[in-house]
């Protein structure tokens, strides 16, 4: 079966994956195409149109400063996705390097890396992020850095666990016997096989990161206004709950859908990548001899 058709078949089989992929694709597309989609500049104010209700010229209404809520929500997806993407990439990178080193080489290196990660894991993650932000100051770059500091340990643990369990697989022994060196074993044999659960988990974590960013921005510790971050918009909307509820609903719904999308994606991937499920969804061609 050609890969594309196979992919489509898998999508159609695993419903959460289908929905998750669709949502993630739509949101990603929206964030990439934000300038094309949004009717106006998300920062452009029209004080005369302050707090216009949804409908008509303003699809989702305007906020107090007369900015188009729809454009802001669309641009907000850029911030959220970029943030989550960078945090995921960087913490995954750090976690992978440290986790692999710890898991593969073991011994003292392992102990040291694991004890350090223990320490980082024992701090409540969002709390630690908030407090470090207090020191470093808010802003996108700082926030990404803070989240990486907070979350690398999670990935390091996950990867290490995977590395350790994969390490004992006979095919690793087989590779060694086939003359492959440590580097080759790590890059060709360990890591490709470690990543299945990490990918599913990573997709879930994207959702977590987005919620985290929204929460911090909501508290004023994250992305700073006037950047149209969803958290900023929510914080803004709080005062207008009675007068302009759409201000809360639009970004709130955006957060919900995006996070839901990534959670579904993670769910679906987890389901798909869990070897036990292969049989049930019929994605394996293999000969089931059991």
């Amino acid at each position, binding site marked *: 079966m050609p890969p594309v058709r196979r992919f489509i078949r898998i999508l159609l089989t695993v419903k959460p994956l289908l929905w998750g992929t669709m949502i993630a694709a739509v949101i990603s597309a929206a964030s990439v195409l934000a300038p094309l989609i949004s009717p106006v500049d998300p920062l452009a*104010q029209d004080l005369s149109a302050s707090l216009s209700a949804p409908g008509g010229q303003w699809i989702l209404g305007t906020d107090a400063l007369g900015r188009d809520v729809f454009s802001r929500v669309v641009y907000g997806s850029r911030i959220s996705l970029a943030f989550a993407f960078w945090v995921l990439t960087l913490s995954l990178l750090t976690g992978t390097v440290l986790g692999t080193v710890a898991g593969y080489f073991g011994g003292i290196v392992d102990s040291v890396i694991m004890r350090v990660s223990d320490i980082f894991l024992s701090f409540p993650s969002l709390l630690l992020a908030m407090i470090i932000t207090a020191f470093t100051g808010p802003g996108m770059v700082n926030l990404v850095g803070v989240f990486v500091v907070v979350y690398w340990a999670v990935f390091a643990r996950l990867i290490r666990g995977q590395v350790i369990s994969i390490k004992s697989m006979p095919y690793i022994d087989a590779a060694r016997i086939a003359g492959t060196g440590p580097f080759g074993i790590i890059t060709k044999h360990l890591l490709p096989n470690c990543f299945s659960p990490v990918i599913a988990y990573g997709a879930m974590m994207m959702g977590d990161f987005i919620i985290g960013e929204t929460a911090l921005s909501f508290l004023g510790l994250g992305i700073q206004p*006037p950047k149209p971050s969803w958290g900023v918009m929510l914080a803004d909307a709080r*005062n207008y709950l009675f007068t302009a509820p759409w201000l809360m609903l639009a970004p709130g719904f955006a957060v919900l859908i995006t996070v839901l999308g990534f959670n579904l994606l993670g769910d679906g991937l987890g389901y798909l990548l869990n070897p036990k499920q292969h049989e049930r969804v019929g994605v394996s061609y293999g000969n089931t001899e059991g």
Partner: protein
Amino acid sequence: MRRNKKLILFVFACFLFFAFFSTGCGSSNVTGVTTAGGQQPKNGGILRYPLLDDPISLDPANFNEELGIEVGKEIYDGLVELDFDKNVIVPAHAEKWDIKDNRVFTFYLRPGTKFHNGKEVTAEDFRYSFDRLLDPDTGATVAWILENVKGAAARMSGKTEDTEGIKVIDKYTLQITLENPSPSFLSWLAHPGAAVVDRETVEKAGKDFKATGARPDIVVGTGPFKLSRWIPKNVIKIVRNEEYYGRKAYLDGVDFKIIPDTTTILNEFRAGNLDFIDHIPPGQKSLVEKEFPGQVIRNTIWNIEFIGLNVSKPPFKDNVKLRQALNYAIDRDGIIRVVLEGNGVPAKGVLPPGMAEYNENLRGYTYDPAKASAFLAEAGYPGGRGLPPLELAYNVREQNQKLAEAVQAQLQEVGFPTKLKGMPLPVYQREVGAGALSMFRLAWSADSLDAGCILKPLFGSKAENFFHYKNPEVDRLLDKAQSVAEQGERIKLYRQAEQIIVDEAPAIWLFHPVNLYLKAGNIQGVQTNPMDIVPLSSIWISG
């Protein structure tokens, strides 16, 4: 004595720099007591009143922050106090006083006044309290009240063990000698920081006296209310001081509920859990007037909100055109409409309308983007080219946030590249005080009937002056105005000074806000005044 309200950045050091009281003047400018038609005030009831945070301390020596003052003014009393009704200095513990050469002040205390713990208040208590403010070990933040007292400098630097200028004549007589003559010294003494404290209690409590959440047996004052309970981040309860020497409070007590967020405050009011709130969150101001007809009190306060420009640093240094261009770029009406929901007056210049010195004919600035662009080009930055990004700093609070965003958008419209820099209040306070910011949002309240209280601390070269603005002519005019007794002449001098300042534009003048209070239907006796102070001892609950 003035407490700037929450929405205004509070900067203490210049608090009463220029307070100047001429007895009998200005009563016409004062909003009277709001009373329910013909009803007699009656005793009883607890007022539930929100406080945005815990006061850091209820030690008068630390009353440089408005939250401390808001509670502390009800607990502590000093020698004299300000009559909110008439805006004059009236006796408190001091029954009467002699002033010689504006230098030697002799106070004759009321005999028989008592601390909350029952001890009698004597001149020695005042001597101790004042000396304590100057004692470097106290770390008082309001020591500036007594800066001018003879020997204060030596005491503050730790060279002497007591203050030369404070003398106990007898049990009920206290004499204070100043270094330099000062007619306004009396009004300084009305500051809650200059309150009397009980030596024994303070010394026994030690460090705890300054701590947040101090126990009632430590917070011992002489005011109309006494502290009954302080649960940090929760509630401060004060109850009527039945032994009070003056007119006793009507309320049985006040519960200051600590709610750090105005939206929650309004929600609690909606739910009937608060009786009086003085902070309406932005976005709901117009709503509450419909929601609670007759319960909203509009108070036109003497206040100017502006964006200060640091004229000692580029790009604002020596570039009046640039500063004026900024002033022309701002749509004040639009900002008032969306940020204040219409509760404000656009500012042409510095002084708020209602003040005697307010000048209707001032050459000020109006919204004129074309002119702004032209001036920007004249300033050497056509279309904003070559202009480094301006960094607009503000303390993060809903309304300021919105204001900053609006201003940023309007400035960028004209071609000023503008960035925003929001900071938490304590950080902002420090940065503004240190003069480190180049563009900063600030509001300034009048603390007396005299325009000097706005102009001098802000623009006098010897005062705090966050703008680093220096103009000898302005200094001369302000000094002269201070010494002139005749009102018409004084007003003229102030107007002259204001015109110079406005022309030189060390700030973007924004607006004069109108404050909204919201009270429950049965709350009576709320005094409003242009200084935005709500004395609680005059409030009573009807029905």
